[in-house]
């Protein structure tokens, strides 16, 4: 909604198109973020089901993806958290049976992102 509408142009009861919350990115609320260690993930989908913001994408993969113990997981696999919507509630990390998700403070994540590759 870039151009603001006049009252005459409003739909009844400010009716809006569906799925407008997609345009409202709540990731900015985050104080801590989940860090996903894909090498420990068993793609059990528990985090996907528990995420209250549907911020963990899952997809069907025929070729599979490498997870815990070097095993290739096929079928439903999770992908990296969508940080546009993840509010950092930590439910995924709490529920994860293999503890492949850990919560770190946002500023630590930002500092980590600023580091020159290879620097300790």
């Amino acid at each position: 909604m870039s151009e603001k509408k006049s009252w005459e142009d409003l739909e009844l009861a400010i009716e809006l198109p569906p799925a407008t919350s997609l345009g409202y990115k709540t990731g900015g609320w985050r104080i801590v973020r989940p860090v996903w260690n894909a090498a420990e993930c068993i793609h059990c989908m528990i985090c996907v089901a528990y995420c209250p913001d549907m911020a963990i994408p899952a997809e069907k993969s025929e070729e599979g993806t490498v997870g815990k113990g070097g095993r290739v997981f096929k079928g439903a696999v999770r992908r990296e958290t969508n940080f546009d919507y993840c509010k950092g509630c930590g439910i995924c990390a709490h529920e994860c049976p293999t503890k492949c998700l850990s919560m770190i403070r946002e500023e630590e994540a930002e500092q980590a992102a600023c580091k020159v590759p290879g620097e300790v």
Partner: protein
Amino acid sequence: MGVKKAITGAQAAAEAMRQINPDVVVAYPITPQTPIVEHFATYVANGIVDTEMVPVESEHSAMSAAVGAEAAGARAMSATSSQGLALMWEIVAATPGLRLPIVMPLVNRTISAPLNIHGDHSDVMGVTTLGWIQIFSENAQEVYENLLLAIRVAEDERIQLPAMVNQDGFITSHAIEPVEIYDDDKVRAFVGTRSMERGLLNVAHPRTIGAMALPDYLLEVKRAQEEAMSRVFEVYHSVAKELSAITGHEHPLFEAYRLDDAEAAVVVLNSAAGTAKVAVDAMRDRGMRVGLLKPILFRPFPYAEIRDALKNVSAIGVLDRSMDFGAYAPVYSELRNSLFELDKRPKLQSYVFGLGGRDILRGDIEVVFDELLSGSLDPERQRYIGLRG
């Protein structure tokens, strides 16, 4: 032709609901509304209507469920009184903003405290600013007809606002009167079914309703809501014309009773208007030129039309069955507002009567007329009918 039945105002409301055949009725019992939903529940139990009846644990839930059903696209109704209306207030306030045309019979009862189960208008006068269409009924016949009228006005695509149809607790709701119930087929053809156009279950047109509106949009939303309210008059008139074809009489915004050459008039809502008519007739028989104006459509308030109807009356007594503490009583306030635009304004007097269900008798109204005709009025100070001390 319809059939004449000896029924109460509550049953008359239930009869209207039977013919309206709502998809969903959600209610919680409260005196004196309870018989409406009791009678309607027997229609549901006997398979006379197709309604999904939802018993809930409170009025707050009742109106919440009605809002949910109406948003989904159903025709939803509830019914309440007094404390019940107070408990559902939060959702009552949200309904017009969501533009959901829920129609609800309201059986007027005193709002606590002190606790009192009898009829006055302190319940409805607490919600007249919320954006519901408000219609008042003198007797059981009017309750029945006003409900039929209300459903068409509320659901009209130009309006899409909720409506309450008021009747006096016990005096109307529990007293048996002859009521003509019109032919089911004719009434059902008049009432029709609610359009699914705006229903959330209309999956061909998904939409979001009830979105937040921040300071950049709320004013525009409310201005649009006011526009819908202002269109109620024209829709009311056209729906009333259609309804007249069934009822055989007019359905005006207000009733002007022997007002044409009146020197003095009283203005009063609901059942007391019936008493006032008897007083008017008695005084007319004694040669006094008096009349009555009974508002029917109270929200939106027909300021211009009422001003025009009263412009030649010299003295007007406005009888309020509720108070607005520290301010002019609600109906009196509207009348003052309405008449302010006249160059030659009538003399006015505010009267408070009938609180907590106290009777008002023909003689009380004749005393009002005597005062109006004597000219000893004080428009700044309200008088109390039947007050001891």
